[in-house]
């Protein structure tokens, strides 16, 4: 399971694969005000990136991986 949820926060695993994009999208649809904890994430497939860009969810925690964090910050802010 790539995600873990705590109330309205989705906690992402280290790697989000192409298939996970669908799950991510579903969750975001169900939780329009859900928050994302990406701290553990080291890479996410471009399909996930698209979902995040389209949804612009609140980010509870940016990835600890500096490169990924920098990319996501340019994409989501």
């Amino acid at each position, binding site marked *: 399971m790539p995600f873990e949820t705590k109330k309205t926060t989705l906690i992402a695993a280290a790697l989000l694969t*192409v298939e996970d994009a669908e799950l991510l999208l579903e969750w975001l649809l169900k939780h329009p005000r859900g928050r994302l904890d990406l701290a553990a994430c080291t890479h996410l497939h471009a399909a996930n990136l698209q979902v995040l*860009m389209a949804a612009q969810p609140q980010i509870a925690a940016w990835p600890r991986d500096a490169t990924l964090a920098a990319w996501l910050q*340019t994409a989501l802010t």
Partner: protein
Amino acid sequence: MNPLLLQFLTEGREFLQGIGEKLLQLEDNPADSACMDDLFRLVHTLKGNSGLFEVPEMTRVLHAAEDLMDATRAGRVAFSRALADQLLEAMDFVAVLLDDLSAATGEQLPSTSHHAAEAVRLGELLRGLMAQAGEVVSEQLPVASAAPSAPTAVADNVTDNWQLTPDTFIHVPEAQRMDCYRRLSAGATLCWLVYQPDEDCFFKGEDPFFQVIQLPDILWQRVTSREQWAALAELDAYRCLLRFELIVSASPAALAEHFRYVPDQIEIVPLTAAALLMPSGRVHTEPLAAEFTRTAQALLAAGNLTALTQAARTLLELSAPDLWLASALRWLLLVVEHTPQEIDLQRQVLAQIGELGAQNPPKPPFSKGGFAAVNAEVLEAAQTVLAAQRDILSLTDSAPWLTGRLQAAAASLAGTCASLGCDAELTALNHALTAAISAKTPAPLLAWLDNSPLPVEKGTSSSPSFGKEGQGGILSTAGGLLSQPPDLKSPQPPFSKGGLDAVSNPPSPSFPKGGLDAPLSKAGLSEEPAFNRRAEDHQVSPRTLKVDQVKIDRLMNLIGEMVVAKNALPYLAGRAEEVFGVRELSREIKSQYSVINRIAEEMQDAIMQVRLLPVSFIFQRFPRLVRDLAHKLGKEVRLVMEGDTTEADKNIIEALSDPLIHIVRNSLDHGLETPAVRQAAGKPSEGRLTIQARQESDRVVITISDDGRGIDPVVIRHKAYEKGIVDEVELERLTDQEAINLVFAAGFSTAETITDLSGRGVGMDVVRDAIAKVNGTIELRSTVGKGTQLRLSLPLSMAVTNVMMIESAGQRFGVPMDAVAETVRVPRRAVRTIKRRLTTVLRDRLVPLVALNELLALEVPQRTNGDDEFAVLVVRIDGDYLGIIVDECRETVDIILKPLAGFLGSLNGYAGSALLGDGSVLLVLNPRELL
């Protein structure tokens, strides 16, 4: 399918045909330079066309082919058979791609990416030919001319600096741009990289984000979407719409290598320091700026950079940091510090600052930062145009058409002025033009340009507008253009002046940057239709109309039905007279019938004319086929084709295609000998294959003859016996000609060994049947050692068939008239039984008889008439006469023959069915199959 794609496919096929022909011509005469030029142009134009669509595989191969042809044309590479082979293979590949594209439904082009590997392979093979030649003649060649395959991959997507427009960097913050500037000044190599993954890339297992994130030394990055994201509920997560833009500290070659699997999805532009120079910020008129500029310009002219720096710092301290002026000053300081030698750049920044402080009214400072945000396309276009005019006016030649050139340049400048709202400059421009023309020198115009406030970029204009256009933008937009309301919204309808000022259209601030399909401007007026198009503006009206086959077929079917429907009138006339007893009406109906009949016949004739196709439609494949086969078999063959303008109905021509190819293959495979064998036989080593077409009355006759070894009746007899096709008795009786005809017997194949050419289990019997299906006949003559001749005779058209109606066992049948030799009455006593077969003697000839009822397995004896005579239909099949006993022969009638459908389709012995005038269905017999 959108008209542009349709046009491309049609024209593409024509070009491929032309390319094939030219190549074969060149093989015969490699010195034909006109032919070489034609060939080059065809390849070149086709490549250009392919660029309008997103078919990178096709463009890649054609590009390589074009380069190779260019080298060949220039004599750097010698024309050879190997080269022709390679080019032909490449063109076959292009044909496959065209076929793929023609399967397109709707607006979406089918992906051709599964051909990518093949495209790369062919491209490399073509370039390999150049590289080989390059080694041989390398001394005469400059380095670039014989580019081997490796660097081209880089060259394909590395564009030079030209394409960077002021708005390219609009999203790069000043600090980062300045950082890049410093690095570049220090000698670093930086590239601007745009990566737009294919929409379906996720399905190919690609992760573009991973590709990008792996890049080392990213100085700036941005990721956007190519179009507005759909609402989340409708979002397709797997349709990739991402667009990555980066500034990377890496060489173009290294980047090309990193993205080597997606070369057509990226764009790499090496950066220059000057391109990054772009002050930005809040604009506020600053009176001090004018004074500063004057001082600074003087200091710059004096080369006193220290004092200049001091002055700039002072003004910078006085300015709020978010002001445009502050930004410009920071740039000035940066430029002075890091590139003190770039006087031009320093002047440029100063000039912009000066304009800011200029008094009422301020001249529009066409700073890079200024207009980029508003309408990048227009500003970019204006700058391109101005730079080009500067180049043109800087030309020093004295061409006889100099005056025209000056006028055209002035016209271009005037247009640009108007576009930029600098109409005030026009008077001066006109004066400059007059002066230039009378002095026969561009100098006055050049001076005007230098002194004008127009945003002319100096020093960046000499390289061509090298635009690898945005990926995917072309097709989608072009497709939309032609099939839907146009996507393009010109900021203003291009009417002549007068309408110009009446329209106000504020530029939209929310203009989506970087969107490929972004309209030129969001400003309104897009609803203005392109009306008032005048007839005389469309001069090139095609003389030939290309019509969809389906429409012609429909027309023909309708005419066919008309022909049949008119047959009802004689019935009607008959009923009027016999049933209702009105002879007068009957006569009138008959006279109307003759009018309608005549028109119907003319309609038939007309539609036949439309459907006529020249045999060249099939013949055109033969040069290539013969060439390739001959090469494979190690034979030398000269192909002679005559009468290829002979026409016949499309269906006939199409039905001829496969049999003819088979015959030609046979001839090359079995008929024509190898050069050694031919020489030993005292024949020229080059064999000769002649294909002739001509019209003979209402038939088209095609003869295929070769001067090969011929068919030996002794061998045929032997084989036929071996295969059990004939028994010993027949073997004795057969004439040589009859023996030769045995090659048409089912199961007979003359091939000694099965080759990969004609020995694919298809014998001449299949050829004969295919020809017979369209009511054609085939005759074979052969002389041992001299050669073989096949003569095909086919009807010109097959739409309307004239059949004789017969009756048997109370049913009506039709028999095609072209099979009927005559109808006779044979008294029962004249029918003999010889060897258990019914026969009779007709005009001293023994004719075998068969009863139709027996053939149709109807257990009813044939009826005779009152004089005890049988009605006999004499048919001719392959030169033999045969009498078919029927109950009664009736009139002949024109029918439209339709093949039997459904379960009837498998019935042998029927040619098809037809609807009669009274609405009943007539089954038409096929005598050949009956027997």
